[in-house]
């Protein structure tokens, strides 16, 4: 695993200097997650395991100076998995210094950035590499080296990013039931001669006006999403990272109990370009059944003009989601979501329930079922990977 050494080293020195010179309060938040995965019906032609246990640990160290205007954060993360050696990984999720002066904010180091408004796919969110070793939902991210300068205005913010040091996507072992259907070479290839040290840039202007929240972003650099090409080793594909320019808009209109959402991108590679969009709504009903629970309903439509279900799961698909929030002291909730592909009629359903056990612990259970996956669909290799996940998180 590549840890950006020079930045880590210089930030470590700064951290030690600050801590030795001053007795600042250091805040620590630890999260430990113990999980058990059980897979059903793994077909016999694949040598894949059908259950495993894993543990992850994340700590956020944070301290601030100058009356809170300067913040230093370090968040190391690691996971151990009983069966998949590729899931035994660690990452520096964050190691950054943020300094805020009036309307300006300066940030340097390793950070995570989220852009966008949709729930079922994060199209416009391109700064960080997605960590698919953690989860397939695309919400876990690898830390990205960056310098970020932001200027806040009355109701908007302009942010500029310089992104040195590209992070390659990491892949599960081939015997992990959630792995890709082919073996991926250890050695990635790049369109740019600078390889993984190409410096990327991004700009985002975001804000709100009345009930409208908007964001306009531009990214230029190495695509976080690889193409898979044939390499020299038989039976193995190579992750190829092209250069791209992406222009995107994201809009949310918050109208009473309705949230209307749109994310749209235009992505340009040297040889081709494409457009993709996710549009949807979220509707909440509060205090149903005499205040017993809140119900949230989500519908999002995905479109990608490459139009091929073998390339993307989101070319002509509908996502329907439901959230039951029980307004109890344990914050119990049930989430359910389903994808349906209009072109090949593939579908997948996921249900999750979670509940607080104490002030320090939370339990959750998640079930994913891939039903009726078409042979040409990108999710075909997952057709026999229905799973049940039990997770116990401990916070201290």
């Amino acid at each position, binding site marked *: 695993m590549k840890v950006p050494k020079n930045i880590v080293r210089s930030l470590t020195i700064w951290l030690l200097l600050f801590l030795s010179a001053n007795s600042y309060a250091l*805040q620590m*938040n630890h999260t430990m997650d113990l999980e058990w995965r059980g897979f059903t019906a793994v077909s016999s032609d694949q040598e894949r395991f059908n259950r495993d246990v894993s543990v992850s640990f994340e700590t*956020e160290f*944070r301290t601030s100076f100058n009356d*809170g205007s300067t*913040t230093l954060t370090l968040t190391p993360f690691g996971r151990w998995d009983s069966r998949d050696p590729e899931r035994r990984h660690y990452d520096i999720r964050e190691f950054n210094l*943020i300094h*805020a002066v*009036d*309307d300006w*904010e300066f940030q340097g180091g390793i950070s*995570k*950035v*989220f852009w966008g*408004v949709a729930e079922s796919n994060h199209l416009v969110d391109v700064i960080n590499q997605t960590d698919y070793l953690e989860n397939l939902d695309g*919400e876990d*991210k690898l830390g990205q080296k960056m310098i970020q300068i*932001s200027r*806040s205005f009355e109701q908007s*913010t302009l942010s500029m990013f310089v992104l040195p040091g590209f992070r390659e996507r990491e892949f599960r072992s081939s015997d992990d039931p959630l792995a890709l259907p082919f073996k991926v070479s250890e050695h990635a290839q790049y369109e740019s001669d600078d390889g993984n040290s190409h410096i990327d840039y991004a700009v985002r202007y*975001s804000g*709100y006006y009345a*009930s409208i*929240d908007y964001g306009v972003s531009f990214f230029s650099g190495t695509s976080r999403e690889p193409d898979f090409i044939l390499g020299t080793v038989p039976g193995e594909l190579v992750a190829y990272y092209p250069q791209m320019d992406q222009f995107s808009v994201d809009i*949310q209109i*918050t109208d*009473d*109990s*309705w*949230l209307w959402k749109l994310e749209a991108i235009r992505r340009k590679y040297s040889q081709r370009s494409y457009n993709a969009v996710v549009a949807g709504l979220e509707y*909440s009903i*509060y*205090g149903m059944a005499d*205040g017993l629970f*809140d119900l949230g309903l989500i519908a999002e439509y995905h479109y990608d003009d490459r139009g091929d279900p073998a390339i993307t799961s989101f070319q002509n698909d509908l996502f329907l989601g439901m959230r039951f929030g029980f*307004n*109890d*002291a*344990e*914050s119990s909730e049930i989430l359910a979501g389903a994808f349906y592909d209009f072109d090949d009629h593939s579908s997948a359903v996921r249900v999750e329930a979670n509940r*607080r056990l*104490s*002030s*320090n*612990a*939370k339990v959750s259970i998640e079930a994913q079922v891939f039903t009726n996956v078409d042979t040409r669909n990108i999710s075909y290799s997952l057709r026999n990977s229905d799973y049940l996940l039990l997770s116990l*998180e401990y*916070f*201290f």
Partner: protein
Amino acid sequence: MKSIITCATAMIVGVLPFQTALAQSPEEKGLEIATATNERDSGWNHVIADMEMILKNRAGKESRRKISFRQLEVDGDGDKSLSLFLEPRDVTGTAMLTFSHGLEPDDQWLYLPSIKRVKRISSKNKSGPFMGSEFAFEDLGSQEVEKFSYKFVGEEACGESFECYVIERLPQYESSGYTRQIAWIDKEHYRSIKIEYYDRKNSLLKTLDFIGYNEYAEKYWRADRYEMMNHQTGKSTSLLWTNYDFERDLKDSDFNQKALKRLL
């Protein structure tokens, strides 16, 4: 002749305020008390405080919430506030930014620290419980005068030997869970001493007692403890306030989407 006119004028002028007072309707007097309450508690500009909630169910089982709270007074509009959740630990770092606008819907954003996402949320959920407690969102929101219509009910002793005005107030904003509230306001300092909440069926739902008032910045009274009792479920929530700070300078730029991410 002139003296008679002067005398008559003096009589009229002298009598007028008395007559106005007599003619003042219960609604006018209620509004007057509410306005005075609001005026006594304005001009503080900004405040920081820590809040601890202790939720008790009918069997006496407790669970706790800790929140760090900051608020900015906005001239001619509702206040801006920022709540940073510290406990329970699974929500540590989650923060909520609210720009309240009186009768208009509030603007509200939620920050989810695990994925660094700031999400605009609907502020429609006025009557829902705040973090599973007996406080509804509307009980803790910014209390602008125009949010209610008022009616003076009477005067009586209340709390720890206070002389109080009793006023009835009817929510004028949408989606309230109450038909009405009865508030006891102390006559000397215009502080809320007790509030009764009546549900949509107009039965008594909850009682809130404000206990242990202290004066800050030589002017602003804040209670150390709020005790909310739900009479229908037998559950209760205590809200304990500590570390009030009216001195620390907070700016408008401390209350934006960017600031949400730097809080913890």
